[in-house]
């Protein structure tokens, strides 16, 4: 990966960009549109589950809406209906742009997108009728996971073939992350499905594989895809070069090396050989290295040029998302230390860290990328800067509120659970007010997602005349030296 900048001129002009964009537009818009549907669907069920935790008799008359189904449906609809297709859409556009080649057979990708959504629908329906596998993040029954894997292989093959036909010069950092992500997901998903869903191995070994998959799904699939978007959008939007390719290398390789191992730290105290948990703890702590490398690299890139964050939706969402990734990794490292996790394990802190990673980092970064990508694919500007602003503040407030109350409440709950003199019932009473506020925060997140869906639908139905100015969520000074960055 030699990076001689002098030999890497910007060979892509506007006409070539337009050609590449129009070749990927149909599948990318399909992935984004269906992803936003599942985002709304999943977050509504997350809200229902959060209400059930504080008011158990809510909607208790219907077997389909019991907590065991709503919470599992929300996790899986968000992971496989929203996050994964959004990552695929971003990955397809970035691959074509960065490899500087047009997409040859977009119809196979359209087919893959449709198959993927059929698989998600079958999986969610399977959970509703009671075929949940009870393995976190792999709850879809076996007949749905085959469909998902088939669709993903179509996509990954396309991504790798495009990568091989690239016309670009030296690889850019986003391309490393894209290739890593497109290889990791089928590896993780096929292995975990084979060992846990299709032909389950002996029960005592299952939790370790489930934890490995849950850790890998975030660290080796969603994190690389989100970082690929951030490393493309941020320097491009502010018109500056990434500060250091050495820091990018450190971030990339440390993430790939430690990310796959970090999942098992949550099994502390479980019936597993001690070394499995200790490896997870060591890897989780070492994840501080990619966290710092990403944070420093992007900060040095943006230093003194943060102004565009105030008016550009794409930049504001992406930078917020990446900063939450840094906090996710640092908090996960602290939470994995045996002295800490012996108290916080099984408390709501796990819920807080999941929310921070999946919504705070990945969803926010994906929102930023979608705000940047879709106007280029459709040639239309976003219809309402006011709604985008609402989307940002509702999402940020919701996720930060939920994460802070669940961490505070989780500490109290964890100490109560840890104290052998305190009854389980009392620990539930202690966490109750915090869960109440977390349910309110889930409502804010649903409203944020609704605002996003409305903006997206408004653009699709051309509520704004073409040729109008781009949607800026704050006033940009007349004589600002910064680029428009949207």
């Amino acid at each position: 990966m030699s990076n001689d900048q002098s030999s890497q001129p910007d060979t892509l002009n506007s006409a070539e960009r337009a050609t590449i964009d129009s070749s990927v537009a149909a599948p990318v818009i399909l992935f984004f549109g269906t992803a936003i549907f599942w985002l709304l669907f999943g977050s509504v069920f997350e809200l229902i589950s959060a209400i059930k935790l504080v008011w158990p008799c809510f909607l208790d008359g219907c077997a389909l809406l019991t907590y065991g189904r709503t919470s599992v449906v929300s996790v899986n609809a968000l992971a496989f209906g929203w996050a994964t297709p959004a990552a695929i859409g971003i990955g397809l556009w970035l691959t074509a742009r960065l490899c500087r080649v047009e997409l040859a057979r977009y119809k196979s990708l359209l087919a893959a997108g449709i198959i993927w959504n059929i698989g998600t629908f079958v999986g969610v329906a399977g959970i509703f009728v009671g075929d949940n596998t009870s393995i976190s993040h792999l709850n879809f029954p076996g007949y749905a996971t085959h469909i998902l894997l088939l669709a993903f292989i179509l996509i990954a093959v396309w991504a790798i073939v495009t990568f091989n036909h690239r016309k670009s010069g030296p690889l850019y950092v986003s391309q490393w992350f894209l290739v890593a992500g497109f290889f990791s997901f089928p590896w993780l998903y096929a292995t975990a499905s084979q060992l846990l869903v299709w032909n389950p191995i002996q029960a005592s070994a299952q939790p370790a594989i489930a934890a490995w998959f849950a850790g890998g799904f975030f660290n080796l699939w969603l994190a690389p895809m989100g970082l690929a978007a951030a490393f493309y959008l941020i320097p491009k939007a502010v018109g500056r070069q990434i500060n250091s390719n050495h820091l990018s290398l450190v971030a990339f390789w440390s993430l790939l090396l430690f990310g796959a191992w970090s999942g098992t730290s949550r099994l502390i105290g479980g019936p597993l050989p001690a070394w499995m948990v200790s490896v997870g703890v060591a890897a989780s702590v070492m994840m501080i290295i990619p966290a710092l490398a990403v944070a420093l690299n992007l900060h040095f890139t943006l230093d003194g040029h943060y102004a565009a964050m105030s008016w550009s939706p794409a930049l504001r969402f992406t930078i917020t998302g990446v900063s939450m990734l840094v906090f996710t990794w640092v908090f996960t490292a602290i939470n994995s230390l045996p002295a800490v996790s012996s108290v916080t394990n099984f408390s709501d802190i796990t819920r807080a860290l999941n929310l921070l990673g999946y919504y705070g980092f990945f969803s926010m970064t994906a929102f930023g990328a979608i705000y940047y990508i879709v106007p280029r694919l459709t040639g239309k500007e976003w219809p309402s800067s006011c709604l985008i602003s609402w989307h940002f503040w509702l999402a940020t407030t919701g996720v930060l509120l939920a994460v802070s109350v669940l961490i505070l409440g989780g500490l109290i709950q964890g100490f109560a659970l840890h104290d052998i003199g305190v009854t389980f019932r009392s620990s539930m009473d202690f966490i109750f007010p915090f869960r109440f506020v977390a349910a309110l925060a889930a409502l804010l997140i649903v409203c944020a997602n609704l605002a996003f869906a409305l903006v997206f639908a408004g653009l699709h139905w051309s509520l704004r005349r073409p040729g109008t100015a781009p949607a800026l969520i704050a006033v940009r000074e007349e004589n600002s030296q910064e680029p428009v960055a949207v």
Partner: protein
Amino acid sequence: MTSHTPSNEPPNGESPAPNAPVLREGPEPSEKRAPVPFWLIILSAVIIFWAGIHLALNSGGFQANVYNPSLVSWSGGGSGGPAVAPDPKVIGKRLFSQNCAVCHQGSGMGVAGQFPPLVASEWVVGGAWVGDNHLVKILLAGMQGPVQVKGNTYNNAMPPWSQLKDDQIAAILTYIRSEWGNAAVPITADYVKTVRAASGDRKDPWTQKELKAIPAETIPAGGAAPAAPAAPAPAAPPAA
């Protein structure tokens, strides 16, 4: 050629006209070659060093049958056996607050006229004719009818607790006999088992009269087999 090319149609020779968002884009991103900050290298080395030490000390020698790393040395020696059992008094306190505190109160003082106290009660720490076997029997089958405790008469019903396991009953009794200034010897799970076997499958609550007919047994301070008859009374004998 028409002026408008649908954006989702693959290009066939004719490239679509660039739209406004594409036209305002900056150049494709690239990277500078600034060095990695020195302090980050040092910090990374410290973190990796710590992680290695942690792994070495807590891996149980990478043996598949070691589950508790704290019992195994870094070279793999040690038993890795089960964890030490928790203090029965602490378990007893939790079980007491779950099951008993509703009537006898967390303070062990009971409710005047309704529920008898446990603090310094001859029924708990032993009396003239009241032994440790009576205390266990009351927990197993319950008690009803008039009863004298510390000179006051109570007339109420206590439900049976035979659904609790021997070690749970032992934990509760050990707790109430050593808390609030009470200082009687602990009751072991083995002793509860003996009394449970001796009581057979009695389900009816005891009365004071029935209990008085049973000779008292008292566990000696050494914690060995119970001795009969009762030791000298530390509290006033109940007026039966």
